[in-house]
Every structure is written in C-alpha cells, then in structure tokens.
C-alpha cells in the first residue's frame, strides 16, 4: 500500500512553546490510523497543520504525492481531506439536512444532486429522521455524527476525526466504530483519528501513533503500542492495559 498522507519532520511552535516536535509518519491508503496521547500532547495542532489551519514551522505534509503544507483549509478540503472539529461546529441555524447539503455541494454544482447525496449520507449515520431539525437543537452525540456526515458528504479520500467518540456512551461508540469500519471497507476511505477512547482505538485502528509533549514516542499496531513501557508511563497508566 502506498502512503496517502505523508507527514515528514513537522514542527510547530507557539510563542516558544513547542506544540509539535519533528513528527513523522505515513498513513497508507485505505488504513485507519489513530493518534493518541495525553491532553496537550499536540494532537489537535498536528491535525490543524494537516487540515491547513496552521502552516508548520518546519517539515512537510504531502497528500497523494503532492505537498499541501502551504495550502488554506478550503483548498485542502477540495484536494480530498475532510475533517471534524474537536469542539463541534455545525452550522447552527441550518437544518441537519442543509448542513450536509453544504458539504455535498463541494463536488456537485446541482443542489438536487447534492440533496440526494446528503440523504444517502444521513441514512448511513442514522440522522435521516432528524434531517429537518435545526442543527443547534441536536444532542452532542448527534452533533458529532452530523459533523462526520458533513465531512463525509464532501467525498473525501482521507477523513480526519478529532475526538468524535469523546462524551459518547459505549453503545454509541460501538455504533460509530461499526459505521466507520463499514465506510472504510466499502469505499476504501482512509481515516486518521485523534482519540482518547481506547475502546474505539483498539477496535478500529490498524496503526497507532503516540504523541507526548509534541513528539512521537511510539508507533505500531495497537496491541504492541499499548504494551510499550513508554506509552504506559506517559499516557495509559497500568490499569488500561488489562
């Protein structure tokens, strides 16, 4: 498998504080790749660099063989990277359906075709019955799913998910995990996720990267990584391994 996303020696400082420190990794096409680490480890900053919100101070990001590290967020999305936000931000006054239609319009100029595609995505994420509600009225789990639906509607090749499981009940987590696996399997969608919920990481990820103080401390398949003493020490704690 070739690397769809290649992050090479990426760093980012905020007023002297090193948020991301020379991080390198590659996400193969079709993979589900997780980034874990304690709060403040630089996971979201890393995501924002990939999504074009920040330019890296050093290093490069390449997507499908082309550098994207100087592009603005909208052009990165048009290249085929969809994202969700850690603190959800759907378009509050728009209906659930219209939120997803906006995403679907990225690759479609016809509103009717975009609406049809939006319906498809809404059904997949079990939001179809709530399509006429304003996004602001949804519960947090539903808003997280709506963010995923909106990002998926842009037909991304790579989906960046920033803690979409946080605050969900275990059954809801399992449901999202199943949906993501299905989309990954059926459409070959590559997924890069930041996640604290180890239950989801273990069930989903082919490969895990662990960040600590902005630097990579481990990378590998999930079962190996969770036994890595450095990872247990800095992040998981002893009981998590059991």
């Amino acid at each position, binding site marked *: 498998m070739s690397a769809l996303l290649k992050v090479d020696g990426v760093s980012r400082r905020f007023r002297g504080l090193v948020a991301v420190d020379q991080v390198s990794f590659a996400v193969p096409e079709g993979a589900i790749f997780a980034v874990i680490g304690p709060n403040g480890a630089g996971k979201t900053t890393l995501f924002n660099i990939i999504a074009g919100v920040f330019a890296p101070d050093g290093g490069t990001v390449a997507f499908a063989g082309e550098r994207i590290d100087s592009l603005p967020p909208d052009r990165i999305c048009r290249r085929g990277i969809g994202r969700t936000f850690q603190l959800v931000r759907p378009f509050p006054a728009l209906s659930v359906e219209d939120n997803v*239609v906006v995403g679907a319009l990225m690759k479609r100029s016809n509103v009717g075709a975009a609406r049809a595609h939006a319906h498809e995505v809404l059904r997949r994420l079990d939001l179809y019955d709530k399509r006429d509600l304003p996004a602001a009225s949804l519960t947090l789990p539903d808003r997280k799913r709506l963010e995923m639906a909106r990002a998926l509607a842009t037909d991304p090749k790579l989906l960046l998910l920033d803690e979409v499981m946080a605050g969900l009940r275990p059954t809801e987590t399992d449901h999202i995990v199943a949906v993501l696996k299905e989309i990954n399997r059926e459409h070959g969608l590559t997924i890069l996720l930041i996640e604290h919920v180890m239950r989801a990481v273990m069930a989903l990820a082919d490969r895990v990267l662990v960040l600590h103080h902005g630097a990579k401390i481990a990378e590998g398949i999930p079962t190996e990584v969770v036994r890595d003493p450095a990872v247990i020490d800095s992040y998981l704690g002893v009981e998590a391994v059991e």
Partner: protein
Amino acid sequence: MIGRLIEGVPRRALILLGLLLVAALLAPLVASDYLLTVLILIFYFAYVGQAWNIMMGFAGQLSLGHALYVGLGAYSAAALFVHFGIGPWIGLLVAVPVAALAGAFIGYLAFRFRVGGVYFAILTIAVAEFARVGFDHLNWTGASAGLFLPVKQYAHNNLWLLRGHPVMFYYLLLVATVLAFIGCRMLLQSRIGYFWLAIREDEEAARSVGIDTFRYKMVAVVISASMTAFAGVVFAFYYNNLFPEQVFNIAQSIEIILGPIVGGIGTLFGPILGAFVLTGLAETLTAALAAIGVDIPGAKQVFYGLCLLLVILALPDGVWPWVSRRLGLGGDGK
C-alpha cells in the same frame, strides 16, 4: 424555472403573494398623491433592504455604509445625464460598475486582511464617509452645493429618460422589488446561497468543507452593491437633486438597514415587510403630527428607535418569522 421557483412554497403563501401583488398594482388608482409618495418610499426601502440583506442576512457581513452604493449610483447616472445628456438606463452601465468596484474594494481590503465583524462594519462606514467628504469637494458634480437634474413639465411619462409622474417611479420600484425578491430566492436555492449561509453560520467550518470564503463574500458584496446602485439611479431621477451631505449620510445607511432588521434579517420577505411597517408607520406619524399642528424635529428618528427597541425585545428574529408562523406559512419565511 417557475416550477422550481415556487417548489415547496405553501399554497396559502402563493395566494397571499398574488393578492399582495394585485393590491400593489392597483394601489395608484386609489392612492392620493401623498400616499403615493409614501408607497414609493416603501418600495425604495424594500428594494434596498433586500440588497443589503444579501450581504448581512445571507453572507453574514454587516455593512453600515450602503449609502455609499446609493450615492455612487445616483451621482454616476445624474452626472452623465446633466453633463452629457446620457439617459439613466445607459447610465446604469456606469453606475453599477462604479458601485460594484467600490464594494469590491471594501471587500478586498476587509476579506484579504481578515477584517471581520465590527471592524468590517466600521470600514464600510469609513469609506462611505470618505465618499461624502470627497463629493463635497468634487466640482464636477456640484460639490456641496448639490447636483440638480433639469426639471420640466413633461406632457407624458418618459420611461427611457425617467422623466415623469411619480406613478411611473412607483411601478418601477415595485417591479424592482419583485425582481429582487425572485432573484434573492433563486440565489438562496442555489449553490452560492448554501455557501453564503454556511459562511454566515461559521466561517471556519465553511472553509473546512472546501468553501473559498473570500470569493463568496466578494460575490455577495458585489451583487449587493450593484443592486443598491440601481436604487441610487432611481433616487437621483426621482428627487432630481443630490447633496453629498444627504445621500452619503450615515443616517441613510442606517435607514436602509432598519427595514430588514425589523422585518427579519436573512428572510426573503422580511425586508419588504419591514419597509412597510417602518416607513409606513413613520410617515403616518409624521402626517398625524402635522395634522394636529405639532412639529417635533426628530420625531421620526425617535419612532425608529422605539420600533427597533420593541422588535429586539419582543421579536429578535424580526416581525416576518412571527407573522409567517401566525399565517401558517412555515417558519422560515420563504
């Protein structure tokens, strides 16, 4: 095309719209000269309010300087007519691009350098004020002494040169309001309309789904400025005199935005309803005060303030969404 335009609109709303349109078409037959001037003013504000609403209500960009586009449109067409005898419809070919360029200039400055929110609003005021002072000293357009269009008694209405009876201006503005209404609905139903709403709701999220926010905000400003310039042209040929202190005044800009705020920002019918409510009631008040022989300077402004206060307190989304629900037309006011 008509099918798409009225798709999803409740039957009752269509019937009501039809009745309103018939009433508006017949109004000059029964209206007195005074009432006609009030109706002209109402449709003027209804039209400009819709233009402003594209920027604020759809794309979320607050302009407090729309008098700039009215003034540029008015002065362009009037100066061409006074100096070269060029009629207003040809004058539009200059007036609209001038206003569009001014809008693009403000938009470029603001959106390129990420001037947003309150600072954007201040920038729009600043440019309008700059124009006011500039035209005060521009001798070609009469400077502060004003620009006057030749007024003769015309035997019949000349629509081509916009010379004639107020009834002609009434129908002209009515048609403009209806076309603007239809145009706004078509915009809202199109791709660009969805992108505008996304930008209004959350610009960063809009960028994350691939929307080139700079480009679509620019389009909103240019469309809004161009539409407003047309109102400026009509303004010039209706009043026949232009003073920088009057057309470019910030009070003009404020009066333009009051209608949509009272009617319902971001709704299609709000700007029209708002113009009726505000201008209608304010003129009634002025007439009533005059009838009982009381002359209170600024009574209209106080009235506007009270209206705004009431609406903000009782119906922060505007009068139209409330009326729409009451009439059973659905909440979104389309």
